[in-house]
């Protein structure tokens, strides 16, 4: 486990809001020299505390007005391998995330579509034809808020 001090946490918080901030910009905000800030940023990357970057895009402005979460239960466990299902589902471009879940169903999929008609097309042509698919529960996303998490 990686131990962070208060300064590391503040840097992490700044980078989680804007990963393109330079070491000197971060240093200025936190009262660190540019080299000191740079060393800490590099340590956060190298230790694996930061696992990558994510572009936060306005889906609506790009024409993707609908996000649906599908809870999927596999019908024929044993006959269809989880690998086959996972390979097929991750290849669908409209499926943004696939999570293996323990509880009510087996997988949760995040699906984007242009509108409800487009979602129906994705559901019928791509999702319903997946190998081993059983019950599907759909919940349409209305709002979403990502929180900074326990690094305050």
């Amino acid at each position, binding site marked *: *486990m*990686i131990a962070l001090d208060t300064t590391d946490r503040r840097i*992490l918080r700044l*980078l*989680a*809001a*804007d*990963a*393109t901030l330079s070491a000197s910009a971060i240093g200025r905000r936190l009262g660190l020299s540019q080299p000191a800030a740079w060393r800490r940023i590099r340590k956060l990357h190298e*230790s*694996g*505390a*930061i*696992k*990558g*970057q*994510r*572009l*936060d*895009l*306005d*889906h609506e*402005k*790009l024409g*993707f007005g609908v996000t649906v*979460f599908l809870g999927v239960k596999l019908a024929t466990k044993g006959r269809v391998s989880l690998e086959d299902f*996972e390979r097929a*589902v*991750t290849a669908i*471009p*409209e*499926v*943004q*995330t*696939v*999570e*293996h*879940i*323990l*509880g*009510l169903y087996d*997988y*949760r999929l*995040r699906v*984007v579509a242009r509108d409800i008609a487009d979602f129906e097309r994705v559901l019928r042509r791509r999702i319903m034809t997946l190998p081993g698919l059983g019950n599907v529960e*759909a*919940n*349409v*996303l*209305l*709002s*979403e*808020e*990502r*929180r*900074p*998490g*326990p*690094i*305050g």
Partner: protein
Amino acid sequence: MLDDIDRRILRQYQHAPHLGPADLAERTGLTPATCARRLDRLRSGGIIRANRAVIDWRALGYEVEVSLRVALDKTDPRAFDEFIAEARNVPEVIEIQTFLGRVDLRLSVIARDMAHYQELYRSAILSLPHIADIEALMHVARIKSDEGLPL
């Protein structure tokens, strides 16, 4: 409005957000100046909202991630607002989503281990207002998580 060049930039950039303008220009076959100008316009137009560092909570010692699916008591018109306002005060809640469907809300909660999760659940989650029903799903694995758009 977006044209094919914008889409080409976004297609590359969303799968490699660590790229600087020069590398992005090379991948998209544009001059660095054109690429930088296009990126500026995508940002000022609010299409690119941010480029965020992704924190690895597991590496920071948060081994457990639980999805809590919540149904609210909707006889109170303030149920959603009050529930969300209180949920924001729990630092371990990293995502709040609202839905149209069988589920009203979903919280993503992280915890150091199962004992920590139990404690959070009892002290911080169950005390949130207007809960009618709550259901916990454990995350086992993320199989796909790039969140790219089919542009």
